[in-house]
């Protein structure tokens, strides 16, 4: 959902965030493909491997998945049941959308809060994910992603509510 009807400063901020999310996602996927391929070549032809590459690949899956989930929130592409919403008439649709958006914002806020507590706890315990990478750094994608997903749904809520009130054209 592109920012519309928003103050220019906020719209610009959203664009910057979107750009950063995209760059990070694409960079990490590229790194994943190259690293995984290099690892196989080395293993089969040189009978060696990069230290820690397998651990890093597993972690990249988590990061790519959550950055992908953030992108999915932007485009409303999370897995959902649309058997009912598909048939809703006119204004009822944005109203129902606004309701489910509000619910999603609430759940994301709680998940973000618990993730922050988890990250803080692992910072205190000083546990390592692998090598010299602490768990709190590896897991920081969780609170970040839930905050970003929550914000996207807040934005969707704003637009859907305006649509339901007739202040914006229907999608």
């Amino acid at each position, binding site marked *: 959902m592109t920012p519309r009807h928003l103050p220019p400063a906020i719209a610009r901020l959203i664009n910057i965030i979107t750009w950063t999310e995209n760059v990070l996602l694409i960079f990490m996927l590229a790194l994943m493909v190259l690293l995984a391929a290099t690892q196989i070549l080395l293993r089969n032809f040189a009978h060696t491997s990069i230290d820690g590459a397998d651990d890093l690949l597993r972690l990249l899956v988590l990061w790519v998945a959550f950055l992908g989930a953030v992108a999915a929130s932007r485009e409303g592409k999370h897995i959902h049941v649309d058997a009912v919403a598909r048939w809703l008439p006119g204004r009822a649709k944005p109203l129902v959308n606004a309701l489910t958006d509000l619910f*999603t914002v609430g759940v994301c806020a709680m998940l973000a809060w618990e993730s922050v507590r988890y990250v803080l706890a692992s910072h205190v315990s000083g546990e390592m994910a692998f090598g010299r990478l602490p768990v709190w750094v590896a897991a920081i994608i969780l609170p970040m992603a839930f905050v970003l997903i929550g914000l996207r749904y807040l934005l969707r809520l704003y637009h859907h509510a305006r649509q339901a009130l007739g202040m914006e054209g229907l999608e």
Partner: protein
Amino acid sequence: MLIVVGIVLILLALLGAPLFAVIGAAVLLNFWLEGTNLTVVPLEIYSLAEMPVLLAIPLFTFAGYLLAESGAPQRLVRITNVFFGWMPGGLAAVSLAICAMFTAFTGASGVTIVALGGLLYPALKQAGYPERYSLGLVTTSGSIGLLFAPSLPLILYGVVAQQLNVGRAVSISDLFLAGILPGVLIVVMLAVYGLWQRRGVVQARTPFSMREALGALRAAAWELPLPFVVLGGIYSGFFAVSEAAAVTAIYVFIVEVLIHREIRFTALPKLMRESMVLVGAILIVLGMSLASTNYLLDAEIPSRLLGYIRSHVHSALGFLLLLNLFLLALGMMLDIFSALVIMVPLILPIAVGYDINPVHLGIIFLANMEIAYLMPPMGMNLFIAMYRFDRPMLEIFRAVLPFVAILATAVLIITYWPGLSLALIRH
């Protein structure tokens, strides 16, 4: 009170709330009621980073998006036409085989309908197949192939089943082997139906041309080895699943982007993002369901359900029949990935209680989902086909009905003949 909350959550899900949020809310609530520290939820989600096999999901998905975006579908169809177009029923049979292979590689059934359906539909009509049959075949094309390696649903079933520790190993390579014969059964049954459709049609078939054959072979020279390398590698045990995925991703990238140059570098970022949107949407639901599985096992819910169902359903056969009906209804509402991560943790322990092999259950589960995709009035492929081929819904319903009937027969055979799924697994 708890029942009210449960109903509200189901209602929200039906109204279109994202499933990860619905499951997340249910998990948070249940752990909170138990008095468990809620950081267990992010802890469980973080365990996504501790499963090596998950690496296969982003890599295969990326490769699938590259393949679908490139000219590979056109080249596949060209080859099919040359080598099998002259045989009676050949085009239908090979269209089915190609669609199955393509779905297995791209993992998402919609992609097959969009990428291949649009090419096969006119080709089938041109070759003299009835309009209705052609429409039915391309709509069905999206669901066949889920049982063949390296389909994402098979991998995901393996991942979820391994989390459950049901006492029997569920390895992904066993699942890949188990899917072969049932998958072949479905393709063969549909192909025979295609042959029967063509009965009595006397029409000048495209004669076989050596020149065209060589041209088609040369055009697809780079893509042809791919299935052999990947499937051969996985089935022979040379590659782990995630390694095969890495090989596929880099190979497809080199062929389609660097050699054929059908995907521009400037188009790559969008394609990468779109493929990872699908991956993110699947894995965030999986993450939530890891947490909910943990809760379900803690609260011994599967074993209580088993006790309840056992007191009503006495035989494994009865249970399987109920399961078939249940999965069909479920598959119309949920897409295959959420159906897998939500229902397998509940169903698998019960099935094991009835002494059903977990690998066999996986094949039954996916075979049922293949039909559910097509089931009027709500199957997902019907809508995709409606948009793609621009046909009214009722016409598509009518076109797929015979296919649904054939698939249903196949599913019954697969369900009640475990040997078909388990024959290839060595013990």
